[in-house]
Structures are given as C-alpha cells and as structure tokens.
C-alpha cells in the first residue's frame, strides 16, 4: 500500500491495465507528448508508443466513434475528454451508437471514456460541469463516479474490462486534494456496490464524487448535535446500489440526497423518487435534495461558491432533517 493522490491512482491504474492487456489503448487530445491536460498519461507515450497513446485531432465524435469501432474489433479503448464538458460533442455517438448497439445488434461496445469533471476552481460554465445525470438516463451506458483514490483505480480497471460503454467521471477537484492508501496489486472494484463512507444511525446522506467530502465535513460539524450521520458513496450511478440505499433509509428513516450537478432532472431526483416509492413506509421525513441550482456553472469564485453545495448548506439540510 502506498499513499497516492486520486490523480496518481488513476494514472497508475491506467498504466497497469495497459501493461497487462495489449488491447487497451488511450486516445484523446494532447494525451501523448503532453501527457494530457491533467498529466494523467504523462510518460505513457514513451512507454507504449504512439499507436497505443494516440494524440487525436480536436474531434470528440471521431474519438468516441473511433473507440466504438476499435472496441467492436476487439480492442479496449480508453478515450480521454480534455474536460468532461466536451463530451457534449460526442453525445450522438454515445447515445445513438455505443449505448444501443448491444441491445439492438448484439454487438458489445467495451469502451471507457474518461471525463475530468466538476467545479471548484473557477473553470466557468464550460470547464466545470457534472454531466453524469444526462448519461445516466440513457439505457446502455454505465456511469462511474469514484470518490477515493482506491476506488478510482479499482473502478477504472473494472470499466476497462467491462464489456459496455463506461463513462468514468473523475472529479478534478479531487485530483490533487485527496490522498489515501491505494493497494499496490491490481484489483477491480465492482460496479453497483455503494461504499459506506461513514456509518451512522440517524440520518443518511446519499452522494458521490467530490460531495462525499462535503458531506463528511458537514457530518463532523454535527458532532455536537448528537446526531449520527451515515454517508453512502454510490460510486457508480449506473448501475446504482438501490439495495444499499434502501437499507440505509430503513435504518435512519431520514435521507438527504446530495449532488454537485444541477437540480431539475438531476440523478438525485431518480434516487429520491425511488426511495419515496420503495421505502415510503420507512420514511420519517421528506427526502431532501441538496444540489446546485438550475444555472450554468459560474466563473467568479463567490458565485461558484453559491453554486456548488457547500458544507454549511449540507449542515443546514441535515439539521432540518434531524429536527423534522
């Protein structure tokens, strides 16, 4: 075990997959000599050559469509979007071709798309988005949102080996800020299994990605309140671990769904609706959602702070719930 940043865990995990499986290749803008905008693939081209670490033209559709073709021919492509925001330029390839090909035509499309996502550094409306909810609505796509270095590595290995199109959202705000022990050996972290980030009895927070840490800080601030908060990190949205969520709700009877993406139509709605439908009788309070408001992501730091759910917002939400 070694302590690694979230970023290093992704980078090491990817390198390991490339070493053990010749079918894996990386393609994206500036992933070669430059090592990618966030340096995840730094040194990869030297090790694996220019045909396994491919500098693509500025062509998200060609990148994702190209990965789809290569995957159908037996490769295990890993595409890097320079920022998750730019995946909008490959939306059609993902929802029309990759997502539906297995179901329609029996052809699996084992691709992984790495998506540096999330805000917190004044990236503005086009370098800060969390578009996971949009994809979670499309049958046939898997949606992965690791929060810890350990999961970042294990979920990436699973994504690459999974026979389906996997959207791997790596949160930029965690890249260098989050550091933790990561097993040295190779392992795969299974999809659809939530992680109990912190156990508790009185309130449940269901969340993923960077918000796991916001929830943790908020829970710490409630220490004096004599309420114990359970934090469930979903880890993957598709599939999502409904069982674990319902179990936590059954235990605490009060639940907060928290995400960094915008409110209306965000995946929090799906979770809250499912809880309301399937754990109705276990609830002692309305299912609360805390999310970003329905605006683009703002640039100016004060605005961005008002946009991204903050520790104090979560504290207030938890107190409301506790008092209900």
């Amino acid at each position, binding site marked *: 075990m070694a302590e690694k940043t979230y970023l290093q865990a992704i980078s090491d995990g990817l390198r390991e997959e490339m070493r053990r499986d010749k079918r894996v290749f990386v393609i994206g803008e500036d992933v070669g000599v430059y090592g990618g905008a966030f340096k995840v693939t730094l040194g990869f081209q030297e090790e694996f050559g220019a045909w396994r670490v491919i500098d693509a*033209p500025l062509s998200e559709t060609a990148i994702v*469509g190209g990965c789809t073709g290569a995957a159908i021919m037996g490769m295990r492509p890993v595409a890097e979007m320079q920022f998750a925001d730019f995946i909008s330029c490959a939306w059609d390839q993902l929802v*029309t071709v990759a997502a539906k090909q297995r179901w329609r035509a029996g052809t699996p499309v084992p691709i992984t798309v790495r998506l540096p996502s999330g805000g917190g550094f004044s990236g503005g409306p086009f370098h800060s988005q969390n578009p996971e909810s949009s994809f979670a609505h499309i049958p046939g796509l898997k949606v992965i949102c690791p929060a810890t270095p350990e999961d970042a590595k294990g979920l990436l290995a699973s994504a690459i080996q999974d026979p389906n199109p996997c959207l791997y959202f790596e949160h930029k705000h965690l890249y260098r800020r989050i550091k933790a022990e990561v097993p040295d050996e190779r392992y795969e972290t299974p999809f659809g299994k939530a992680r109990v980030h912190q156990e508790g009895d009185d309130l449940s927070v269901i969340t993923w990605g960077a918000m796991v840490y916001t929830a943790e800080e908020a829970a710490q601030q409630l220490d004096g309140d004599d309420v114990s908060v359970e934090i469930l990190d979903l880890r993957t949205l598709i599939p999502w671990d409904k069982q674990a969520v319902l179990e936590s709700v059954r235990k605490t009877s009060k639940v907060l769904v928290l995400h960094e993406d915008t409110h209306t139509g965000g995946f929090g709605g799906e979770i809250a609706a499912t809880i309301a439908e399937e754990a109705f009788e276990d609830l002692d309070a309305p299912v609360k959602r805390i999310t970003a408001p329905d605006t683009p992501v703002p640039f100016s730091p004060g605005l961005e702070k008002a946009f991204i759910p903050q520790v104090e917002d979560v504290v207030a939400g938890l107190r409301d719930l506790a008092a209900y």
Partner: protein
Amino acid sequence: MAIREAEPVGSLREVKEAGLDREDLLGIYRNMVITRGIEERGHILYKQGKIPGSFYTGRGNEASAVGVATAMGANDVGTPLHRDMGVHVTRGVEPWRIFAQYMGRSDGPTHGRDGNVHMADSNLGLLAMVSHLPAMLPVAVGCALAFRIREENRVAVGWYGEGASARGDAHEAMNFAGVRQLPVVFICDNNQWAYSTPTHLEYACEHLADRAQAYGFDGVVVDGTDVLAVYREAKRAIEKARTGGGPTLIESLTLRMEGHAVHDDAFYVPKEMFEEWAKSDPIERYRSWLNAHADMTQDEEDEILGGVKRLLNEALARAEESPLPDAGKLTDGVFATPEDLDTPHHK
C-alpha cells in the same frame, strides 16, 4: 492526390486483371438479382401489411453495393446503409433472415428489436447501421484504427450517402482517417437525392470525391450502375489501404430509382431523370455485358433466375414461420455480459 473519374469496364480481360473469373462474374449477377428480389418481395410483404413501420429499398444501387462487397476480403469489415442490401447478400446473410428482420421476427439479425436494413451479422464482418447518418463512418474509421494498431492486413469500408456528406461525422471521420492514413475506404452512394433534397442543396462542390483532397487522400468518381467498374475501383482502393496506402473516397453515382421510402412517390424527381437512368439499370446493364463479354447462356441465366426464385420462396416461407420475439425478454441484453465477448473479434 488526384480526383479521378473512373472509366467504364469494357472487356473480360480487364476484369480478369482485377481478379474475377467467370464463376465470380456469374456470382455477382446472382447477388444482384437476389438483392433486388429481396427488396421487391419486401415491397409486396409491406403492401400485404406484413412489414411493420416503414420500408426502404436500394433499387438502382445493386451494382454499387454488390460491387464493393465483392471487392472486400473475408476479414475486412464494413458498415453498409439502407441502400446497401447487396452488401449483406454478398457477405452471405441468408435471405430468410432478412425477411424475418423485415417482419420483426425473432430470427432476424436484430431479433425484432430493430427493423428494415438496420441489421448486420457481425460474424460476416458487418456492423449494424444506426439511422443517424452518417454516424457509422467514425465507427468504420475506428475499426481501421484497430487494424492499424494491431498491424493487421485488414480494411474497413464505410458507406454514406451524398446527403449525409453534409454532417459533421463524415468530416471528423475522414479527417482523422487522413491524418493517420488508416486502412479505410469511404463509399459515397451518390444517388442524387437525400429524401426530397437535390444535390445542389446538399453540397456546393462538383463531385463529393473532390473532398478527398481536403483530407489528404485520393478520390474517385465511378458510375455506380457499372458493377464491374465499381468492383475494380473498390478493389484498387481496398488493396491500396491494405498495403498502407491510406484511405480512398469513392463516389458512386446512381439514381435512387424509387421514393425515399415506400410512402414516398418521389413526385419531386423529374420524370426524365428516371427515364434517363432507367436506361442504365444496373442489372440489365450487367446482364447485357455478361451476354456480350462472358457468353452467359440463356440456360445459365435461367438457372440463376430460377435458383434465386426458389431461394426467395423458401426464404419467405421460412421467415413467416419464424416466431415473433418474446416480449418477456424485452429488457434482456441492454448491457453486455462477458460471455457476449465470445466473438471472433474479442478472442
């Protein structure tokens, strides 16, 4: 990087040079007849109410589709579209499965999940088209990328229509293929109409093959009603790609001889245009050529036509026996399992 207008094929010798013996020539004829036969029968099925949804044919495009598919190697792959039934036929998809596909039965390649020519048998090296045009071009380029990475001598063939040439996917696919000189051949089925839209509202250059220059590879315009010329050009391009020569864009000129789909009477196509192009019906044209240059006898022809008739009769009967898909399995297979990877490509 020259745009070439391909000569028609004149002689048997020329064709032999391009790698076809007499048996191949008759096989091509048979495939063209099967192709048209499937679509004609499909049309009848449609009128009988046996085909749900809409119905499309590729009448006029038989030479183009069969010609290209004949030039492909066994390990090459392709992404044919809605006018390219001849590709499926030539690669060996059994007609009864196509009828089953038309009728939404469980033995169609998509098991009733998709309709029309939205299908492919991946074991025959074909990838099922999506409606969104030309979204399969980047995918074809991706196949070529895999071949290039693995240094295999295989080629991918990607089809698109002249209408679909306007979309960004065509550009991104060709640009990337050109930059990396990938083993891919682009076939533009230019049938002069995109639904009701004429070419001058779709593009403003003379030939779409001209665009190959913009991407750093060769372009060629071929008469798409001349199956042997199509074959020859496709063969050249495919072998060039196979030997590291990079992509080629082949623009195959035809006329869509029917409406966009069965509901469309094509009122917007000038009558004279249909009359003019009817004179070079691909099957008739090739039949004459076979008579003149390959001494196809009446007996041989009868045998082919009779054989195709029987084949299609049996195919229809068999397809009608194919059960409707089980609605209970509707939600199966949205996600692939590792076992699904048990295909020739994923070994």
